[in-house]
């Protein structure tokens, strides 16, 4: 068994009457990217705050170990092993990017020379050399986030918490950030990532836990999670209502979507199944205007597990309409 960078048992946290985390178990092996995925208000940030020693867990929680150290009894040892980049940039806006970096170097007790070297190196790596002498408050969102991560890396942490590192970034900066995160793990660092973007978790994470309402709704690799929900389907769309009606009476096992004149036929999307489906359509004399193959993705998993309503354009067949929740 590999060593765990983060091991938490029964994480509980309430603020007054409001239960934010209700018994969350986490196990993150060293050198992997673990993603905590969930809608706003699911408790992701609270989990990061607890694991990074910022706030204390409720006494009802079990043992929590980060970097091999007990969170409750030796928080300073945990702090020495971790780096945190929060949702809201943790840079000092009043001073320059370079001064921010040197401040971190001083707080990690590097020598003056070492501090300058590390600062220059990281500023270069994150493409901030040009802006180094400008106050951080003048930086764009993407630059601030890069400076933020650069500052986190000064101490050479073994475990890095990234709380929604790409929220509010434009697509280009987001892809930059993904590249940065991948490079981190290639150095053997453990990354604990929270995100509300399924695509992001799918792209980056070795393991994903879906957090909903303070509980882990499901956990596994992206593939395992996708297997949790019923297989894919082929969607046939018609423009002519009459053609739709006759096809629907012909294909009895297809699920109907009368509003958009579409039929959903269960299928795993493999070439073999598609060929036999096409043959069958041919024989039945059904001609659809549009045929799309739909394999389950994390969105389906997410919406199924978190019980949110599906966005209208997705046309997922069966979805219990639970109380509406804001997903974005």
């Amino acid at each position, binding site marked *: 068994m590999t060593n765990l960078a983060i091991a938490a048992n029964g994480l509980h946290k309430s603020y007054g009457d409001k239960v934010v985390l209700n018994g969350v178990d986490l196990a993150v092996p060293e050198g992997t990217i673990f993603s905590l995925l969930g809608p706003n208000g699911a408790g992701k940030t609270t989990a990061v705050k607890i694991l990074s020693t910022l706030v204390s867990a409720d006494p009802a929680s079990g043992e929590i170990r980060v970097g091999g150290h007990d969170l409750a009894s030796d928080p300073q040892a945990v702090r*020495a*092993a971790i780096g*945190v980049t929060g949702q809201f940039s943790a*840079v*000092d806006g009043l001073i320059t990017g370079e001064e921010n970096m040197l401040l971190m170097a*001083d*707080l*990690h007790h590097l020598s003056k020379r070492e501090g300058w070297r590390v600062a220059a190196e990281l500023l270069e790596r994150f493409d901030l050399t040009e802006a180094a002498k400008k106050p951080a408050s003048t930086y764009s969102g993407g630059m601030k986030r890069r400076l933020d991560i650069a*500052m986190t890396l000064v*101490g050479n942490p073994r475990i890095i918490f990234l709380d929604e590192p790409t929220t509010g970034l434009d697509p280009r900066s987001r892809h930059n950030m993904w590249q940065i995160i991948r490079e981190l793990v290639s150095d053997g660092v453990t990354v604990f990532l929270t995100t509300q973007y399924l695509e992001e978790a799918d792209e980056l994470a070795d393991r994903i836990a879906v957090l909903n309402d303070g509980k882990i709704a499901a956990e596994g690799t992206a593939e395992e999670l996708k297997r949790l929900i019923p297989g894919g389907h082929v969607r046939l769309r018609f423009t002519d209502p009459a053609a739709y009606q006759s096809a629907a009476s012909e294909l009895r096992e297809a699920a109907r979507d009368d509003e958009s004149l579409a039929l959903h036929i269960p299928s795993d999307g493999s070439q073999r199944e598609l060929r036999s489906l096409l043959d069958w359509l041919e024989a039945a004399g059904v001609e659809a205007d549009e045929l799309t193959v739909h394999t389950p993705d994390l969105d389906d998993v997410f919406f199924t597990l978190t019980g949110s309503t599906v966005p209208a354009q997705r046309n997922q067949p069966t979805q219990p309409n639970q109380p509406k929740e804001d997903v974005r």
Partner: protein
Amino acid sequence: MSTPLAPTRPSRISLALRDSSTMLRRNLLHARRYPSMTLNLLLTPVMLLLLFVYIFGDVMSAGIGGGGADRSEYIAYIVPGLLLMTIGSTTIGTAVSVSNDMTEGIIARFRTMAIHRGSVLVGHVVGSVLQCVMSVVLVGAVGVAIGFRSTDATVLEWLAAFGLLVIFAMALTWVAVGMGLVSPNAEAASNNAMPMILLPLLSSAFIPVDTMPGWFQPIAEYQPFTPAIETLRGLLLGTEIGHNGWLAVVWCLGLAVLGYFWSTSKFNNDPK
């Protein structure tokens, strides 16, 4: 890979000193980059000094020293009070900057780093005391420029006067840090710290306590500013200090200790 700490694990004390001096450098950098607030806060005592000496001066002089006093005597009377008021006014800035700082993400970052916890506050306090000293020197220079002269103060008395200013600044600063920590934003911090500049107006800074209404005299006499002002006057001008000396020291130590425990307990609470 190496551990984030230096190879030789430093002792707790040296760690605390090192982190505190790093935080101090950060605060001084802020003050140097954005001097406008410090300078604005200096304006109040300087304006009051000029107002009371040159506009109200004739009436005010007549009221002290049993009549017949001239303007230079009133300058001598008012300057020690204004030096301490300068400290009060500077610490309003401290409350505001602490409150601003706490809303910044960087403080959350500090809390997740293996640094000495108290260093964040110590950096603010030492930075603020240094600013107070600088401000006092500037206002003192204005006082000297308009004719303030210390009479027969010995070197020892000068040192004592300086020491008094420093411990007074430290006491008010710790209280101001606490005010900054409990204030949700800069405006609230500035309002909460108002007593720092209102109390000197209700002290013996501008007029002797025995010229105030009888019912008010005990309040004016025993609030923190008056004993400190009377002590400073005694040290610089040779007036009677009496029990004000130890009263001032007790106030300073009391406020410093109270402010320290208040601030550190607020800071150590979980952030919201």
